[in-house]
């Protein structure tokens, strides 16, 4: 297993080009191309803004503007959910490679995760733009007329944690993706189970509601690893004025994610030999 893990490092070039291929192939033939990676989150955010401003004004005043709060959790969730959805089918979709080419199978689910991470990363600047805009707009100008930039400045101090959150999510997602993709080869049911589990999981994570609004459920939500990712994103991006208090939870989750990754990889490695025959 350790040997295979080391070999995985050697395949980074392959992963890189497959991710590039995935992204290229996705936008090939569309007139706007890679713009959609920015355009999709932008349009989604505009729609949410309109919906929660005019159609269903959010009742919870603790998180305003609500659409931005929602987006801070939704963007990473989309990365997480689509990674898992795509990677579960990746070994079956890539069956031709596994059966006909000597090919390190773990590359396939990893490519799904990384390709979705790229989409996530491309969505971040859009979110950042909106956050910056609201930070300016919400704080009344100081007496001497200089723009108040305190909100954004605090932002910068906490932003150093953002890569850590992303890294933790990457490790966690990859671990789960490896395990699920390997299991799907044997049980196609995993895909359908996953779809439903993800729906439940989404609502069991404080994405559409702030965790503070459900104190009675907090101990349950704490058991959900994605809670801590979502709360971390929200604290870093949306509540810059508070100190990043969730950092210990995040570090604990980081350690747990490494365990999940190793467990996922172990499972994958054990089942590896059966892929070419069962796929």
């Amino acid at each position, binding site marked *: 297993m350790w040997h295979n893990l080391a070999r995985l490092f050697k395949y980074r*070039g392959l992963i890189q*080009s497959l991710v590039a291929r995935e992204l*290229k*192939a996705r936008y090939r033939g569309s007139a706007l191309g890679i713009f959609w990676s920015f355009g999709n989150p932008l349009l989604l955010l505009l729609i949410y803004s309109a919906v929660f401003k005019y159609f269903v004004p959010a009742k919870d005043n603790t998180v305003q503007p609500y659409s931005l709060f929602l987006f801070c959790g939704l963007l990473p969730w989309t990365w997480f959910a689509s990674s898992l959805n795509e990677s579960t089918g990746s070994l079956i979709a890539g069956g*031709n490679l596994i059966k006909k*080419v000597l090919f390190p199978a773990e590359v396939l689910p990893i490519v799904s995760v990384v390709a979705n991470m790229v989409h996530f990363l491309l969505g971040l600047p859009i979110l950042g733009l909106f956050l910056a805009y609201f930070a300016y707009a919400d704080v009344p100008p100081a007496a001497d007329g200089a723009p108040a930039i305190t909100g954004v400045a605090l932002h910068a101090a906490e932003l150093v944690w953002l890569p850590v959150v992303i890294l933790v999510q990457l490790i966690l997602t990859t671990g789960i993706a490896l395990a699920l993709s390997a299991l799907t080869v044997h049980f196609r049911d995993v895909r359908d189970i996953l779809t439903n589990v993800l729906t439940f999981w989404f609502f069991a994570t404080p994405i559409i509601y702030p965790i503070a609004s459900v104190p009675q459920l907090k101990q349950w939500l704490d058991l959900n690893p994605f809670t801590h990712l979502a709360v971390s994103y929200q604290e870093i991006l949306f509540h810059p004025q508070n100190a990043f208090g969730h950092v210990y939870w995040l570090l604990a989750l980081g350690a747990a994610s490494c365990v999940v990754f190793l467990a996922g990889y172990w499972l994958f490695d054990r089942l590896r030999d059966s892929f070419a025959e069962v796929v």
Partner: protein
Amino acid sequence: MAAAIELVNVTKVYRRYGSHHFATLKSALMQRSILQDLKPSETFHALTDVSISVPAGSTFGVIGRNGSGKSTALKLVAGITKPTSGTVSVKGRISALIELGAGFHPEISGRENVFINGIMLGLTKREIEKRFDEIVEFAELRDFIDEPVKAYSSGMYMRLGFSVAIHVDPEVLLVDEVLAVGDEGFTHKCLDKFADFKRRGKTVLLVTHSLGLVERLCDEAVWLDGGRKQIEGDPKRVVDAYIARVAQQEENFLASEDVKALQEQPAQPPTGLDAPVLASDPTEDVTMAAEGRWGSRLVEIAQVGLLDAKGHAAHVFYSGDPMRLHMRIRTQEPVDDFVFGVGIFNAEGVCVYGTNTDIEEFEPQSLSGDAEVFVAFEALDLIEGTYKLDVAVHKRDGVPYDYHRLLHTFRIKSRTKDVGVYRPRHRWDFTGSVSIKPRP
């Protein structure tokens, strides 16, 4: 010479698809053999105790029928699957031409696919850049390399896949029945490339149904049947043994077909076919060449057999062999108006030859009880293929006693793949300033 590829007592057992997912997943996780949990009825032996040693620098052929384990052997050598027991060892970088362009993505250009495919096959980006022009040139795709692969014809697709795989420059090249990828010209280029490989001392493992290729290219060959090694060694010897076995099997198959044909219920003659087919021009009725048997059965052809030179029953003959057709006749009541006829049809339904005793001016006198009729063909100068026989006994005006339409089959085998319906005996002579010699 050291062995480049070595299989020692290799057995590969596949699991049949059933409902035993849980058991197999458990065993996979425990890293036990999957097969321990399975009954023999749930497994399939693709290879049984096969040992093959391919010397470095040689070209080695693997032949056998479909399902004989050839491709399994290749996958084991490629490392795609692991043997159930035994060991497989390979020295040097492998490139496997098992499925061409297996990793191509249809939406992106040929250029990008070359890079990704090359990386998949173990090249670095720089190595591919260096060979890129050569790859494209070899695939004859210079004008299309920036088109998305989905726009390629299947030939272009295969050529590009082949070109990338062969430019990986492996120590060991595994080839699975992929030489049929292009037109004549491209096939020749591929063969040249193999020859080039050979010259540079690389090892080639070639799985193919093309026996001629094995004889021409390979230094050694092995014949697998039912997952077991039958014979290994000089390609000519291996191929001959294989052909002999195939002929034997066809023989058995055709013999069983004959038995079936005679047991069938008599068919009604096609309307308008009361006319004596063999008495007139037999080719007229080719359009109605439905199999069947009809007639009054006053005189019956009870048995039809084909005999080879030694007088043994046979169904497979080599072109130029003698053949004797044998009919056992049973008569209900004595008759004095009878004609025996025979016709040979090829697979397209073309009458290759037809004759009867009336055409050849025999005068029937009397026929009663049992009789036997022999037609001796001195030499079957026919091209390779499957032939069907009409045999009949009928009155001179054509009213049939017993007519067997295309019920009996035999095969002609030939080393020469010439074409036509008939092979006139011939010989090539050359004089003057021409230099030409038979291929070894």
